[in-house]
């Protein structure tokens, strides 16, 4: 594991150097390179330390850690002098509290889930509702604080983990399923509305995009039809035992989500709309919001199989690639090392993720399970969102690539997560292979 981190870290350092090779021709002349090397060394040490701390310790101090991180975030927002709203200065160091809030959050929320799981037989609807509200609050507070920094990318990690953990709550699948459906449909509806804005107008535009009586009637009518159709289909195909009512409620939720999205669209700001529109079609505004995506895709594509060579990428040298030492470092690697290099990096990320997911299966207690699952989700979220964003298949949210992108706090928080995970792993049960367990 440490080797994997070291390799990724080294690749990162090389490309941080490359990103600024037009300004600093010598390797060690670049202060960012030197800093990152120091961070890697600290990170590796932290992996070793945290892998020897019993993770059950965190369960006991989870609340305090969480509250401390929230205070730190509040301090970042209102008290401490900051850099760009994200970093607080401590002497010559700048620390990113949101990174440590992530760790604190998963420690705490894993504990909440564990506690609920243990008492899941007590009550049902009321308990579950209370639990959802409670964990929702726990998620929303750091989400809001980080989001308003503003750092949408990191902020998205919190609700992301919350939602996925919900699936693994072990009970109340229908309610959670309905909730997820509602959230997904409202998000999807929002995307659709923004995409269609301007392309549909007149009476059809009013019906599809508006929020009047006709729109409601359209959605209700469509939901009834679809429900009947799908119910019959499911009956026929799977012999499902779901009642018509359940399916119906699901679809009412689905379409109300779409309906709600109309209200959301009317509230969000034009620049945020622009971002979403850019994601849907980067070429709609080449010089504006779509620029980063287009240039990042060009960088990746132009690398070909073997790349243009370290420090020789033209997109890099002529500044076409934005944020190329942090968020878009994957594009930089792709341009200069080609498919060989970028696939290598992706593979290493995959191996790390795979290793952590195995740990979740090996955990011998519920807390360990939730904790390693959260760690998996954090790293998965970062890696996939980043690579997806670089390749233009996910919206640009400004999220760095674990162990590669420049950034001390980010690298160290990643190392701590790996350290915790290693400890869970070492205390876990032995399985020969996942395949064996699957059978």
């Amino acid at each position, binding site marked *: 594991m440490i080797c994997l981190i070291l390799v990724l870290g080294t690749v990162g350092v090389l490309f941080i150097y490359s990103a600024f090779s037009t300004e600093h021709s010598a390797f060690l002349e670049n202060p960012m390179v030197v800093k990152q090397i120091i961070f890697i060394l600290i990170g590796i040490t932290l992996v070793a330390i945290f892998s020897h701390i019993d993770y059950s310790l965190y369960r006991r101090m989870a609340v305090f850690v969480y509250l401390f991180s929230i205070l730190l975030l509040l301090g970042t927002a209102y008290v401490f002098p900051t850099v760009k709203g994200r970093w607080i200065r401590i002497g010559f160091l700048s620390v990113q509290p949101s990174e440590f809030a992530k760790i604190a959050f998963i420690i705490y929320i894993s504990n909440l889930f564990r506690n609920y799981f243990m008492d899941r037989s007590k009550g049902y609807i009321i308990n579950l509702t209370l639990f959802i509200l409670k964990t929702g609050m726990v998620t929303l507070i750091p989400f809001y604080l980080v989001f308003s920094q503003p750092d949408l990318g990191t902020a998205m990690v919190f609700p992301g983990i919350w939602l996925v953990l919900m699936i693994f709550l072990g009970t109340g699948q229908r309610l959670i399923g309905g909730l997820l459906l509602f959230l997904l449909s409202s998000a999807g509806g929002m995307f659709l509305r923004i995409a269609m804005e301007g392309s549909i107008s007149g009476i059809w535009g009013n019906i599809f995009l508006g929020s009047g009586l006709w729109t409601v009637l359209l959605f209700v009518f469509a939901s009834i039809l679809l429900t009947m159709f799908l119910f019959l289909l499911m009956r026929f195909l799977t012999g499902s035992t779901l009642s018509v009512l359940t399916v119906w409620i699901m679809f009412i939720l689905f379409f109300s989500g779409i309906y709600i999205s109309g209200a959301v669209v009317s509230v969000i700001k034009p620049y945020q709309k622009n971002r979403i529109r850019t994601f849907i079609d980067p070429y709609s505004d080449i010089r504006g919001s779509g620029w980063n995506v287009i240039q990042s895709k060009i960088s990746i594509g132009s690398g*070909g199989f073997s790349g243009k060579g370290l420090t020789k990428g*033209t997109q890099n040298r002529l500044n076409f690639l934005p944020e190329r030492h942090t968020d878009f470092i994957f594009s930089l690697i792709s341009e200069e090392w080609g498919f060989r290099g970028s696939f290598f990096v992706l593979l290493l990320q995959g191996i790390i993720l795979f290793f952590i997911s195995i740990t979740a299966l090996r955990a011998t207690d519920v807390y360990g399970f939730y904790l390693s699952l959260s760690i998996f989700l954090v790293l998965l979220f970062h890696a996939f969102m980043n690579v997806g964003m670089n390749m233009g298949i996910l919206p640009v949210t400004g999220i760095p690539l674990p162990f590669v992108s420049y950034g001390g706090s980010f690298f160290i928080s990643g190392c701590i997560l790996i350290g915790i995970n290693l400890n869970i792993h070492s205390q876990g049960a032995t399985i020969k292979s996942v395949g064996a367990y699957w059978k």
Partner: protein
Amino acid sequence: MAYFPSEQEPGLESLRSHAKIIPYLASFGVLLLSVQLFYLQIIERDKYYALSTKNLIHREKVKARRGKILDRNGKLIAGNRMGYNLYVASGLSKKERLKAITSLGSLGIKWDSRKYKTNRSNLVKRYLGYPLYLELTINSEKYPYIYVEEIPLRDYYYKEIFYHPVGYVSLISPEYLNSKEYANYDDNDYIGKSGLEKKYEGLLKGTDGLRILLKDTYGKKMVLSSGNLGSESLYKKLHAGEKEPKDGKDIILTLDILLQQFIYEEIKDISASVMVMDVNTGELLSYISSPSVDPNIFLQGIATEVWEKIRSDVRHPLLDKGIENFNPASTFKPFAAYCALMEDLTEERSIKPCRGVMRFYNIKKHCWKKRGHGRETLEEAIRDSCNIYFYQLGDLLGINKFKEYADKIHLSRPSGIDLLGEKTPVIPDLEFKFRNKIADGRWYPPETLDVSIGQGFVSLSPVKVLQLYGFFASYGKMLTPHLLKRIGNEEVFFPTVAFEGGQEQIARINKGLEMVTSWGGTGWRARSLKVKISGKTGTMQSKRITEYFKELSPDQNEIPYKERDNPWFASFAPAGSPRYAAVVFMEHQGSGAYLPAILTKKIWERMKEMGYFD
């Protein structure tokens, strides 16, 4: 169960059974991303590579210098100077455009940003003044998003004097740009619109080069170098795409600036055409059509009132009279004499003395001299320009003989002067009226009589008359009058056709032409003590003169401008062994014996002073 220790917490099993799919999902996710990566980098690589190259390349046309135009002594007639065009940069956001408007406003220039095009640079103003250019280049950081580009412009140093032979250039019109023929032109290019500028456009234009600059994401331009690019191989590839411009060829004309200037100053207010030709080579020392306009005004777009003034001028300043057709009038008589001599008709018994009037086909025909010239030889008839004598010659010859000899000595085809738009001479024959559907299409003998004195259906351009006199002066050579002497250092040759036979006859005609400027000759006003001049007057009638009108014989100044006669004077010198020929044609200036004769004398004397006869 067997794989797990027994001390695990209760219920964990159900969680695991949910989570067992996670490693697979993770692997599947990595696989999906890899597929996308593969798609981008391997399958679509070429597309994106082209895009990345397009990103950083800024192609810039390097304009070829338009060839200069020089006179025979190497003095500059048309050259180039720098013009400055003001642009707004491409790819600006709305905010940046506003800034561009503000910086333009601070320079006092208005710009409509609605016409803004993102994908290319936007021209705001042409022909920026030099102080503004300096301000913009020195304080460029004060004016963001706008820039100046240098564009070579044409400059005609002698203004009106060379308008007709040299012509002018102006911005190529947009409809030309789309055609294939003008593929190598862009909207900043100037193109020859008339005269030699148009005729030799291909020589003068040259080939534009291509320079490649690097531009970064902010549009900042950099020199193309392997250092800036970071890659030697890409540099070489891009560098190979660069092209050096090939400047247009300089052309040296046969014209003499000093002579041209001298003659132009003499006739600039008169509608006239004057040419001087070397009768050994066909080189034109002077080519003037007046009045003229300044070719520089076409460069920057012409003011409406100036244009209206030029357009409404009855003297037609834009018309090149040198290549327009007119009745040659009496300057045609030597050709009639040539035909008659070749047919050996001049000694015919039937030729009667001139009594001032004579009846042909029941029509009374008059000589210009009321009392008549009496019995005359051919030479005397030329000297006196006796109409009756030439009527009789024409009658003896018949119209087809004129045509036959004109064809033989190439008088009936264009002179071949290197200007565009030369009119084909009109020498009628029996079928002429039929072919051209004039009146009833039949040729009547009295019409032959008009042709024999250069009136009626015959019409020649001044350059053609000059060529005819060149033919007499060189004893039977049909020269090509031309303006181009050299292309760069390369001598240019124009064809000369020498006709065998007829030299004795021409000698007789030349004798007559020499007598024209003697005391008592019709062209006595051209007589000069410094140069011996042979010549012939001519007076083209603008209006059909009635008997009654002739009786009145009013002063030319009393009749309306448009109805005044057009005088000619064609000449060559020195009389014995001619070296140069000249033609003077004026519109509506009375008799050829007056102004043209006087001007001709001045020209020859001036040329003598300039040493042309040494």
